[in-house]
């Protein structure tokens, strides 16, 4: 682990933590404008977080340590992913951790912690949200693994850093049927995992269709702030991974400060663009019925399998 590697990792962590509420703010603002509203401003998510952290902490009766530690675990897993995944630099701090399976499993661990917290409250809403979140996780994880597997065939490694740098080295290879199919599959999974429309609606509360919000209903104050921050961070990390796997331009392949600066700018631009696209698409989308979601995810699983098949046949 070099000094520049540490610098890159720290940059990524700070960028994701500081930038993710901004991303959510931008997305909300775009939605508001497209829907003909003025919107609350880009900084509103940050203001919300600040307000929440100052509030009193509550412990709902009948909940255990698990309920209290789940938000911390959720943020911690996402933070580790933000540090080890190739977001700004293609050679993150520790190569032994930026493995594809490790990253996917870390994100799953966060979801599991939150689902257990939802079950721990013993309310109908908590259980319902947990059940639905786990269903989506169980169906999205195979797609995620198989899609990135298709990409790792080309690079000969499942290390995300290696996959991204091989894409940087061979930009022409990005435009192949394999990547197009894998990108389609991954885009659907990212939407599902991040809890956005049409799978889950992050801006509703107390609807029978909600997933994420049902699980976190009992959280207040600083705990809720952590949950909100984590969900923004997960969205950012997932979009950033999607961007870097398919549009790797601008990722720093060496650790010089200038390259890092370019990497930061490129990442902000790419994630901002993807977020804007997602927000614009959400205006025109209705939430799917819960039991249509598996069909969507099965479709993306098929795309991922086709991508693997194509990676062989097209060699």
């Amino acid at each position, binding site marked *: 682990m070099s000094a520049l590697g540490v610098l890159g990792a720290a940059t990524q962590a700070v960028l994701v933590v500081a930038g993710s509420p901004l991303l959510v703010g931008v997305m909300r603002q775009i939605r508001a404008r497209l829907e003909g509203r003025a919107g609350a401003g880009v900084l509103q998510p940050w203001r919300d977080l600040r307000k929440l*952290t*100052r*509030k*009193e*902490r*509550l*412990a*709902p009766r*009948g909940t*255990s340590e*698990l309920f209290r530690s789940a938000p*911390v675990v959720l943020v*911690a*897993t996402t*933070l*580790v992913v933000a540090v*080890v995944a190739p977001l700004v630099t293609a050679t993150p701090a*520790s190569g*032994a*951790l930026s*493995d594809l399976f*490790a990253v996917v*499993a*870390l994100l*799953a*661990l966060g979801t*599991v912690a939150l*689902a*257990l917290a939802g*079950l*721990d*409250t*013993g*309310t*109908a809403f908590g*259980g*319902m949200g*947990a*059940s639905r979140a*786990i*269903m989506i*996780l169980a*169906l*999205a*994880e195979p797609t995620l*693994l*198989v899609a990135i*597997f298709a990409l790792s*065939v080309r690079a*000969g*490694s*499942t290390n995300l850093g290696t996959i991204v740098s091989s894409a940087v080295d061979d930009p022409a290879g990005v435009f192949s049927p394999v990547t197009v199919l894998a990108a389609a599959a991954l885009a659907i999974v990212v939407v599902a995992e991040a809890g956005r429309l049409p799978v889950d609606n992050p801006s509703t509360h107390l609807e029978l269709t909600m997933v994420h919000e049902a699980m976190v209903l*009992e959280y207040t*104050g*600083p705990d809720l702030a952590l949950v909100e921050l984590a969900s923004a961070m997960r969205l950012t990390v997932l979009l950033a991974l999607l961007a870097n796997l398919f549009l790797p331009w601008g990722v720093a392949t060496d650790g010089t400060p200038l390259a890092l600066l370019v990497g930061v700018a490129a990442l902000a631009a790419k994630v901002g663009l993807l977020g804007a696209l997602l927000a614009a698409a959400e205006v025109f989308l209705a939430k799917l019925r*819960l*039991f249509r979601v*598996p069909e969507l995810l099965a479709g993306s*699983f098929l795309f991922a*399998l086709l991508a693997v098949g194509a990676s062989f046949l097209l060699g």
Partner: protein
Amino acid sequence: MNLAATGLGAAISLGSATALAALLVPGTARPAVGGTGTALTGLAGMLAGAAALAGQSFSLNLPMLLPLSGVSLTLDALGGLFTVVTGGVAVAAGVYGISYGGHGLRRRGVQVALPLFVVSLLLVPSAASVATFLLCWELMALASLVLVVAEHTSRPEVASAGRWYAGMTQLGFLTILIGLLLFTAHAGDDSFQRLRAAAAELPAGVAGAVFALTLAGFASKAGIVPLHAWLPRAHPEAPSHVSALMSAAMVNLGVYGIVRVGFDLLSGGPALWWLVVLGIGAASAVYGILHAALSNDLKRLLGYSTTENLGLVLVGIGAAGLFNSSGHRALAGVALAAALLHVVGHAAFKTVLFLSAGSVLHATGTRDLDALGGLRGRMPVTTALFGLGALAASALPPGTAFVSEWLLLQALVHGLPAAGTVTTVAMPVAVAAVALTAGLAVVTFVKAFGVGFLARPRGEGAERAHESPVTMLVGTAIAAVPTVALALAPTVLLPALGAVSADLVGGQDPVSGAVTLRLSGVAGSLSPLLLAAALLAATLTVTLLVRTFAGRPGRRAARLWDCGAGPLSARMEYTATSFTEPEQRVFDSIARPQTEVDTHHHDRDRYLVRAVRYRRVLPDRIERYLYRPVLAFLAAWGRTGRWLATGSVHRYLGYGFYTLCGALLLLAVTR
């Protein structure tokens, strides 16, 4: 006499002495004697296995002990690995068994069979001739059968489970017997050494038949689809420490058999064999975990999860065989090492899970997840241990199965460009199966832990729950130690496993590294310890930041949000059935659950509903379409026989008379 020989000798004598002691002591002291003796037997076995794994080997030939062929024992590194695992499970189960159990477990037969079962489990991997192997295998089957039916007086289902288990295990024994005898007939002698030498000249057809027959027997012991039918019946009905021994130690011997016959005795073989192994492995992984996810009986869920895990092991073994047949030895080594690591990891966490499930059963009297819940306050240690086991089983970091599944996926991913159309098609399908399994395993264990232990009690049993006696907790904790060790530092064990697999498929040690696991031959590295450290560091950082910035310290207790409708009751909680209802809908066409809705109307007015009863059962479809027709045919056959033999002596005399006449007539015509 080296440590391996001493350990195995000590294990056999300790086991026999315990069995004898259990015969003599009075009923109340019997579990203590049997449990302690079993634990000591396991400890001796562990030492023997560890010594063998470290490179010591011994062989022993006792020609006088058995007529015709004698008994011969050899403990090599592969056998040593399985002996270590069995020994470890036996230590945990033995300590647990000291104070576990009700009236049924105090009976003489049960406490005598327990140490004998452990001895037979330790002997199977050290058998060095066909006769010895079959003898130990049969002793294992009989001892386990006695243990499965231990509680037959308390529940009627135990007898049915016992019948299924007896039938399946004996049929499996039969196919192994035929397969190995066929092999022996071509080799001339029944020692494994002789078989190994004869494998080269074996005709391809005979080798295939030997492999297929033994595979059927070993796969049924390992609980692989479609021969798994006994497993989800026998594991829930057996006493929990016996379930642990069966699920964590006995099923491994099926894997041992496949590896021993396939790689060692038959030295590899064509790609087709291993494709079959890979296929049934992938099918059992998905089928097993799907049934585990939809199952509401805690121990049945764990039983199906065994089918899943052994399926994953067979995926690794099948991949190793495929790579081996195409000459990719380094990859074959990685795949086999992954399979063996999964065997060890599964043994560790499945012991923890079964023993804690036993504690739950002991405390609440029920295995039904829908009636559990709220155990974390009443049984904190058991809850923590079960949570650890659930994390280890669900392939999440930092967990035990995560490391072995990572290794398995590495082998599969890098096998893609290896060679051949077969590999090209098989590997993506295998990866998809492993990935689907990983997702459903999360559902299964979130359900088992979240619904079973968190929230509020849903039934009377759970309300009255109390923590288990110390020995039971210590027994479970003993198994938790290797679970944690394998999750954080698999690099301690992996070189030994790599050496075993390199020995079987050739090539160098496939895995190296002290903190970071590095694969040799292919690119790939992972550091479970660093990952855990990073998670811990991130958690501490976040906690510290929250402490610094969040306003007031401490927490005020508040009531749960109840929509203003008054306090929530336990009936409003999500149950296990409702938790997996989405999965049940998604996989409806595969699992085909049967639902019954009984509506009881009011006497006076049939438009008023008095009670609605909803019941969902999940029948095993393979059982229904594969076993039922066979059983129906056998029953019809029996009925035909009954028509012939009515019990009338006149009729039997008539048969004799007509047969005699017929024979005379035949002779008169032909002669």
